[in-house]
């Protein structure tokens, strides 16, 4: 038994290394041929950014059991802070040509990593303030209140008084992009890695205790408010980081980028991946982002044997997508991963079961 165990461990280590090598290999290949594969690169980068925010949403919703819908607002904060700090000073006059730039920020700039972290911190600080009133609310009230706060943040960003900082409804342009896909990869891996470490730490256990039973958690000496606030603030920090990454990815942002529908998109990723599974959220981010692109042919007119099929026109893709989503919600409510995490045992077990099932059918 013991021998078997260590062999398994060795096998897993080898497979882990292999997986890392494959990922790095793919990224390296894409990076080397980035002009031929710009479409694929953009899908992968967007997936990674969504993976970060999906995991952060899962941290509050899946692991702490708080139904928060404020993700888009915190992403907006992170995105604007990052954008304001990284737009090259020389280009600022042309970005703010309509209402001018506030002298306070005219010469303020920071390197990308620092800007992202500051963006995350601003989002976290804002979450800490918002959390004081709203985290005392019960499930659906919390959902609607966080949604409301996200909308207020968006309204403030678009407000005329903020024009010299956020450039109002014109949005911010000329945001420097990523230097390579590896930069996105590193940011994503570090962010998700930190969240995984947190979830598996003693604090992560407390989050789960609160999710399971608030009254029992309190009786075990867990301060409900502090624990919820901690989870909410940390989640918002990473939402802010991913917002900053999104700003760098898109190169130009405005307050419309961060509408409620963005939060819904992230929620759908979390649901499809499985509420309470980090690897599920990552997988969900890739499946949803890539799926949306792959379904693009539904939007193109389709002609079969000279007859054009009337269903295929712009918008059909999103309909199919939403129907798929409802099917997942109604019939596979556990999503791709349920609350399980990825493991090699799980993969092998899955295929073994498949093979058995095939054999059993063949008989």
């Amino acid at each position, binding site marked *: 038994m013991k021998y078997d165990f260590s062999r398994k461990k060795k096998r897993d280590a080898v497979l882990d290394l292999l997986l890392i090598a494959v990922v790095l290999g793919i990224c390296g290949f894409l990076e080397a041929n980035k002009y031929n594969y710009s479409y694929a690169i953009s899908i992968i980068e967007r997936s990674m950014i969504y993976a970060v925010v999906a995991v952060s949403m899962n941290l509050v919703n899946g692991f702490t059991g708080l139904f928060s819908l404020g993700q888009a607002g915190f992403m907006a904060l992170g995105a604007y802070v990052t954008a304001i700090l990284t737009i090259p000073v020389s280009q600022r006059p042309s970005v703010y040509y309509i209402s001018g730039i506030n002298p306070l920020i005219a010469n303020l700039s920071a390197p990308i990593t620092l800007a992202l972290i500051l963006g995350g911190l601003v989002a976290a600080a804002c979450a800490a303030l918002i959390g004081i009133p709203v985290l005392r609310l019960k499930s659906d009230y919390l959902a609607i209140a966080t949604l409301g706060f996200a909308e207020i943040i968006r309204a403030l960003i678009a407000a005329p008084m903020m024009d010299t900082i956020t450039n109002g409804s014109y949005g911010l342009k000329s945001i420097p992009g990523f230097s390579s896909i590896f930069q996105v990869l590193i940011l994503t891996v570090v962010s998700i890695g930190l969240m995984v470490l947190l979830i598996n*730490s*003693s604090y992560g256990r407390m989050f789960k205790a609160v999710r399971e039973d608030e009254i029992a958690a309190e009786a075990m*000496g867990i301060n409900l408010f502090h624990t919820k606030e901690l989870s909410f603030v940390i989640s918002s920090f990473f939402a802010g980081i991913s917002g900053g990454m999104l700003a760098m990815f898109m190169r130009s942002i405005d307050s419309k980028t961060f509408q409620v529908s963005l939060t819904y998109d992230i929620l759908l990723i979390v649901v499809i991946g499985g509420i309470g599974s980090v690897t599920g959220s990552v997988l969900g981010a890739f499946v949803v982002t890539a799926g949306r692109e792959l379904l693009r042919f539904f939007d193109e007119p389709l002609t079969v044997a000279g007859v054009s099929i009337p269903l295929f026109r712009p918008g059909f893709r999103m309909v199919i997508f939403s129907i798929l989503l409802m099917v997942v919600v109604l019939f596979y409510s556990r999503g791709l991963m349920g609350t399980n995490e990825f493991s090699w045992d799980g993969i092998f077990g899955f295929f073994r079961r498949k093979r058995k099932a095939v054999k059993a059918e063949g008989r």
Partner: protein
Amino acid sequence: MNEVKENVLKMENVVMQFGGVTAIDGLSLEVNRGEIVALIGPNGAGKTTAFNCITGIYQPTSGVVSFKGENLKGKSPDCITRLGIARTFQNIRLFSNLTVFDNVLIAKHLRAHDNVFTATLRLNLKEEDRMRRETEKLLREQDLYELKDEIASSLPYGLQRRLEIARALATSPELLLLDEPAAGMNPQETQELTDFIVKIRDQYHLTVFMIEHHMDLVMQISERIYVLNFGKLIAQGSSEEIQNNPEVIEAYLGGSEDA
């Protein structure tokens, strides 16, 4: 033998009202160190409400609850647990989707010295290690170690009760409140539980205050008994005194049929 009684829990004239309903009406009682004291009474007498007032889930409308001389007024449930009062619930409240081990381990965190940064970056290995060792020790003592990787909700009912008690013990309490620990148990299980309560009292130097309907259990091990009916204390004393108290008999036989 030292006969000085040290007061652990004291309720003085506690009143608890919900809107117009008075659930507890002027309850005063004392529990001394090392005692096993029972709170009995017909259904709806306000026993669980009394527990909720002690553990901070409800704030009493008036009156004082004190633990080792410290007034518990305005303290939150987690604070009260930290002071050394642990409890179980009438309808078991485990962290149902977590393992037996994690259920107990979570309770251990109460006395840990770490923060979210050290915990995330694994700089608290010593603390984490200590919590795990203590959890392991406690589970072995409670004969739950073989089940440590089981999901809590998959355990049979009796073991879930045991786990809930183990989890309460993990907070290193001085006073343990048990809310109907023998509910749903057959006579043999009840007998085992009776011995178990005495055993943990001695082993962990506890004071036990419990709500219970099984009179065999109550009469066997309680040093003193308080009887509550319609929110009012109607009797107190040793088991013989209570058994012969006409008011108590009246409350049980006259008031409700399910005692």
